[in-house]
């Protein structure tokens, strides 16, 4: 089928488009054709589209520049996805592509037309303006904000389907060009398991699109890879190196996490632009971008091309263009020599060749219309008036920067080689190797050889083979030292037009000059002030130019100037890929479904979901007080300690005494941290001589486990073993005057007060299941806490409910339990205590055994006990009995001047259905709190409410019901 677009060339060898088929997509509202295999950028280029989006700050038109996914100039919006690198994204049928940062249209952008860029927005301009008058700042700010950003977030985008995969290898090779492939082959040959990553759709690196070799070298390498023990990951970007050779890589919607013993960085080079007037005009492309367009997609970059170069690659490119029949306006080479083999043909074809000349500027309004060139002297400065060459495309092939960001984050130290005008890494950390063009090798044979040696060194690092002999290394080093320089560090003198150092942030050379003059003269400060390298390219296009410029302005070497810290990821990555699947764990008890079936209203408690109530919490309270209730307390932390060292450990962990606790008995315990602050509380039972079973709060269970583990592993772990039983056991509390009668129906054990008194634990069968039964109670009623293996949880729960039927049993939830415990004056750690609460102030002085030789918090508690606590946790009742002050309200002391001084706060409050009045717990200064009946004032919604101090339980102060 015939090609509908004028710049699509006849078929090219090695191209990756399928010319037999056609797809269409829209850009900026218009329909464009493409072939499968095309990227958005190649299809748009084929259609002659030059401007893809507008720039970040000045809204200047921008188009394809690097063609390698590095620069910000071709970012577009694809459907709901912002900031898509159009040179990397394959076209799909009906894809909806739009320009970014253009308003009202790509062609007529208001910000750009206003010329804001030229006069009003120099570097640091935000810092120096909009300050006065200060009340107008919010308006300025809104205006600035409206201009910020690039792509648009669609708030309808779903989380999507992402996943993760772990990879393991002996040697990871990053980069599947000739050096990477050689390294992988060599390491595999030595017996290593090799992971080979490449971000292209096929291996081969530059061999895929550069014509400095025949296709056979690539085919040859690929065949060898297929038969070797190499796991190949194409289309895979390695994003980051993390501690201990932990690599993150992404392919599509999948995150790979790879651990390797040795890594070869065959990451290649990044072609970088140079500084000249109007260097951001659409139609100015890097040489490698032009070669990619030509050789991968069969697209001519334009109708009339000026090739600007300082190395052999520009001549390769010119030869390609000539062969493809694209008109060449000129070849401009900074070097005075003309030794490229293609120069003869090019000259013969009548292509004007300017040696010893350089590009000084580009002309054009919305795209390039001419190149301005000039002869240069030996220091690179223009001589004479210059020459204007009419063209629609400038192909820049003047310099390469080794892609070393990954290696820098892995600890490699950068060294700038002045003679080659390139960065290198020295020293390279142990077990890491750099190879190929990233290591300065440019000629194909050198790349292959360098890769081979790196692969061998990596395998030798794993002791799979011997390292290469020294003479081989010397020979290679010599070969590399003879490599021709491929990068120009020339910066031409400005001529009044904008010259962009940083395309992402629209930072010009003048901005850099200004910033340094203002004192931002270290690269890190310069970066932060000018925002150079802080945009989507993360410095790939700009860092080295900025450094050269900076070093020139400051009159120091690039090495002295230093470089900014490289940070992961090296390629921007979706939040979705990093997040993976949406997996927030949920913990539920063994009878979760039962609760749901009974209409329970569930609440979040740490990782757990638990019933807050089953419809009427007050009825649940009354039922426990008058009949019998059952609550699911499975989320309680449950830990077993075994071994003769357990009592010692407990004595240190808790403020209480444990050694004297007899078998079968239970004690309430409190844990503090070093500062004497209450961490957790619970009951602890001595089940056996060497077996202890303890419970912690539900929300604190995870923290408590870590806390105990921390101490076990820090030297207190002798002769004791900790097991987390939290999920192994389900736990129910059967509470209420009829609880004994209910339980009696399901067990043969004597439940009489004598045989099984308060604060005891017994192992017994309940409904045929062996359980641990505690006689304890948070509610103040006669109650049994039954810990049953979770697999039998539902069975025992249902048996209890059935057995309790004749006594009016009903389930109760957390809300009823909170009321019940408050009526008893019991505190909840984490609600009634905070990061300052000590047990002396929290009414637990009786538990503090300062006479123990040592325990966590002892020193602090000793200190507090000297003067007594500043604040006390006490009960209170409201003067107006129906008023329930919300938890969190403040207790205040009105001053003479009307000011309200905060003196305390309400930690718990409820209306007690049993006592028919509002009750609560609060923190008060010790002098007020210590005096039962003392009144104080609560600040509530602008009102002051009076309350008075109450000591001890509000209900059943003697605890008769509990012990009955």
């Amino acid at each position, binding site marked *: 089928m015939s090609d509908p677009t004028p710049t699509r060339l006849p078929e090219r060898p090695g191209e990756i488009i399928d010319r037999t088929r056609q797809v269409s997509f829209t850009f900026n509202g218009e329909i464009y054709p493409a072939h499968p295999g095309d990227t958005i950028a190649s299809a748009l280029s084929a259609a002659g589209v030059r401007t893809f989006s507008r720039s970040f700050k000045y809204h200047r038109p921008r188009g394809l520049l690097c063609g390698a996914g590095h620069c910000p100039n071709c970012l577009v919006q694809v459907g709901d996805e912002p900031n898509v690198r159009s040179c990397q994204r394959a076209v799909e049928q009906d894809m909806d592509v739009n320009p970014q940062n253009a308003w009202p249209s790509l062609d007529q952008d208001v910000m750009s037309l206003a010329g804001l860029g030229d006069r009003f927005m120099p570097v640091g301009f935000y810092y120096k303006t909009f300050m006065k008058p200060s009340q107008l*700042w919010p308006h300025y700010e809104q205006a600035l904000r409206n201009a910020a950003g690039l792509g*648009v977030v669609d708030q309808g985008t779903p989380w999507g389907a992402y996943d993760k995969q772990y990879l393991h290898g002996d040697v990871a090779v990053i980069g599947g060009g000739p050096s990477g492939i050689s390294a992988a082959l060599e390491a595999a040959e030595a017996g290593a398991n090799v992971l080979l990553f490449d971000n292209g759709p096929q291996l081969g690196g530059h061999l895929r699109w550069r014509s400095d070799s025949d296709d056979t070298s690539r085919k040859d390498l690929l065949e060898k890879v297929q038969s070797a023990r190499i796991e190949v990951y194409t289309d895979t970007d390695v994003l980051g190196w993390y501690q201990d050779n932990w690599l993150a890589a992404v392919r599509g919607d999948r995150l790979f996490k790879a651990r390797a013993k040795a890594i070869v960085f065959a990451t290649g080079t990044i072609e970088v632009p140079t500084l000249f007037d109007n260097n951001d005009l659409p139609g100015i492309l890097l040489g490698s971008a032009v070669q990619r367009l030509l050789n991968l997609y069969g697209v001519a970059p334009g109708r009339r091309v000026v090739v600007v170069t300082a190395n052999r690659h520009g001549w390769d490119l010119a030869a390609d263009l000539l062969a493809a029949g694209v008109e060449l306006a000129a070849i401009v080479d900074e070097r005075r020599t003309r030794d490229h083999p293609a120069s003869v043909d090019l000259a013969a074809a009548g292509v004007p060749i300017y040696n010893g000349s350089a590009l000084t500027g580009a002309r054009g309004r919305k795209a390039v219309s001419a190149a301005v060139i000039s002869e240069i002297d030996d220091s690179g400065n223009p001589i004479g008036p210059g020459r204007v060459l009419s063209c629609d495309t400038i192909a820049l092939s003047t310099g390469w920067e080794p892609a070393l960001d990954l290696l820098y984050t892995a600890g490699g130290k950068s060294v700038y080689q002045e003679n080659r005008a390139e960065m290198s890494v020295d020293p390279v950390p142990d077990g890491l190797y750099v190879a190929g063009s990233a290591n300065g090798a440019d000629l194909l044979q050198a790349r292959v050889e360098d890769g081979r040696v790196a692969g061998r060194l990596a395998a030798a690092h794993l002791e799979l083979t011997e390292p290469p002999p020294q003479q081989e290394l010397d020979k290679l080093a010599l070969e590399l030292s003879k490599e021709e320089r491929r990068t120009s560090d020339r910066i031409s003198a400005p001529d009044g037009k904008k010259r962009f150092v940083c395309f992402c942030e629209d930072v010009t050379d003048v901005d850099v000059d200004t910033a340094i003059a203002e004192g931002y003269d270290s690269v890190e400060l310069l970066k932060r002030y000018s925002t150079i390298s802080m945009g*989507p390219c993360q410095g790939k296009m700009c860092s080295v130019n900025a450094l050269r410029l900076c070093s020139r302005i400051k009159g120091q070497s690039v090495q002295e100037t230093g470089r900014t810290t490289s940070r992961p990821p090296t390629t921007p990555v979706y939040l979705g890929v990093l997040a993976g699947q949406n997996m927030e764990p949920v913990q539920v008890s063994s009878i979760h479904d039962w609760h749901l079936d009974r209409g329970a209203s569930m609440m979040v408690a740490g990782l757990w979901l638990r019933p807050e109530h089953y419809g009427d919490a007050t009825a649940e309270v009354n039922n426990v007080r008058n009949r019998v209730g059952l609550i699911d307390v499975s989320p309680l932390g449950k830990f077993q300690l075994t071994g003769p060292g357990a009592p010692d450990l407990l004595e240190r962990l808790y403020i209480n005494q444990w050694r004297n606790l007899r078998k079968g008995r239970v004690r309430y315990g409190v844990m503090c941290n070093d500062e004497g602050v209450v961490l957790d509380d619970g009951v602890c039972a001595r089940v056996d001589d060497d077996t202890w079973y303890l419970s912690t709060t539900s929300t604190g269970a995870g923290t408590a486990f870590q806390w105990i583990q921390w101490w076990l592993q820090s030297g207190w772990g002798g002769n004791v073993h900790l097991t987390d039983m939290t999920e192994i056991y389900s736990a129910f509390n059967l509470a209420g005057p009829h609880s004994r009668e209910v339980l009696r129906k399901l067990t043969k054990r004597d439940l009489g007060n004598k045989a099984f008194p308060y604060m005891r634990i017994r192992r017994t069968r309940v409904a045929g299941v062996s359980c641990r039964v505690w006689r304890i109670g948070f509610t103040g009623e006669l109650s049994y806490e039954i810990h049953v293996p979770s697999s039998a949880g539902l069975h025992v729960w249902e048996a209890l409910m059935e057995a309790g039927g004749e006594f009016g049993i009903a389930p109760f939830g957390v809300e009823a339990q909170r009321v019940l415990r408050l009526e008893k004056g019991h505190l909840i750690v984490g609600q009634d205590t905070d990061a300052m609460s000590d047990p002396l102030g929290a009414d637990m002085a009786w538990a503090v055994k300062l006479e123990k030789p040592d325990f966590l918090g002892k020193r602090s508690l000793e200190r507090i006990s000297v003067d007594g606590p500043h604040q006390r946790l006490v009960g209170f009742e409201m003067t107006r009995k129906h008023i329930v002050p919300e938890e969190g309200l403040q207790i205040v002391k009105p001053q003479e001047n009307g000011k309200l001084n905060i003196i305390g706060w309400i930690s718990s409050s409820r209306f007690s259905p049993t006592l028919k009045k509002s009750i609560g717990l609060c923190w008060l200064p010790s002098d007020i709190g210590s005096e039962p009946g003392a009144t104080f004032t609560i600040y509530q919604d602008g009102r002051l409410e009076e309350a008075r101090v109450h000591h001890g339980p509000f209900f059943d102060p003697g605890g008769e019901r509990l012990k009955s």
Partner: protein
Amino acid sequence: MWHDRPLKDGYDVVIIGGGAHGLACAHYLAKEHGVTDVAVLDKSYIGSGGSGRNTAIVRSNYLTPEGVRFYDESVKLYEQLAAELEFNVMFSQRGHLTLAHTDGAVRTMRRRAEVNRLQGVDSRLVFPDELAHICPQLDLSEHPRYPIMAALYHPPGGIIRHDAVVWGFANHADRRGVHIHQQTEVTGVDVRDGKVRGVETSRGYVAAETVLNATAGWGSTIAAMAGLELPIATAPLQACVTEPLKPFLDVVVVSGSLHVYVSQSSRGELVMGASVDPFGSYSMNSSLDFVEGLAGHVLELFPFLSKVRILRQWAGLCEMPPDFSPLMGFTPVEGFLLDVGWGTYGFKASPICGKTMAELIATNTTPDLIYPFRLSRFAEFDLVGEKGAASVGH
């Protein structure tokens, strides 16, 4: 802006740490007390530590009356800072939301709101109907794993250009004669007879009878040079930023349950952070774990951000005292002063710290505002428990 000056043999005051705190102190010493024989020493470039690594959130909705009073003064100074420094620090008071996903969190938020309100700080508890107006991007349904029950809304809270704060202070301090010495590392503190006499630096000895340690992150290591052991544990705190996006998120959103905070900068990037790393370290390496976890939690709040890309991640150090409140003022070593222990809340306190520490140095008396943060509070067990308000930094 500021100038390289020769390092003198001695100064009246040496401030270790050229971050926002140290430079603010130098600025206020010079401006308000006429003390200009001051050197600010930094081992790297100014603002290279926590000042340039935080997520630039400023707020005063703390939990304790002491904390609220202190941070409220800081916010007020920040509001005037651009005018004072003639440098636009771009304080963007776009409002700050701390989400509550559990009834316990609602209780804590109410407590904070009440403390704030009684201290005259604009802060209140808001529920989903109002949240839908303040931040319509939030999923307020019952569907998320941790449904949003309420939030603490703090309208004066917001974000700022943190580097600009550093530069503004540096510029003004420099103008008044303060010496700012970058790339000057303190390697020792000279203490004789219980008094500080000077500091050893990578560029030689500098005498001073007043030395301020303003090196949060390394506060305990510098204090150790003066023979002081501080109750501080240092751990990395990480953050990251996305590519620029057209503005869509106005308020700063913090979720304690999900351990995440998000704001959109004036450049359009989402700036995001999470909890302190769960182990002590002085490493400033970024971790993969961190971005993976953070991404999951951000998407939990805003699932539609799945195709937004992370551009850059970094780590800083934060040092946690046991009560999550700073250590400021005098020490048992005469002349050796502290402004450390800044956990996750140091940047937002910069101006007021500078001002009060300058007053302390000039008058040799502890200002009331920072008296609660004195080092001796640990010996006296008079802690200032800010754990409940230290955002998600714990």
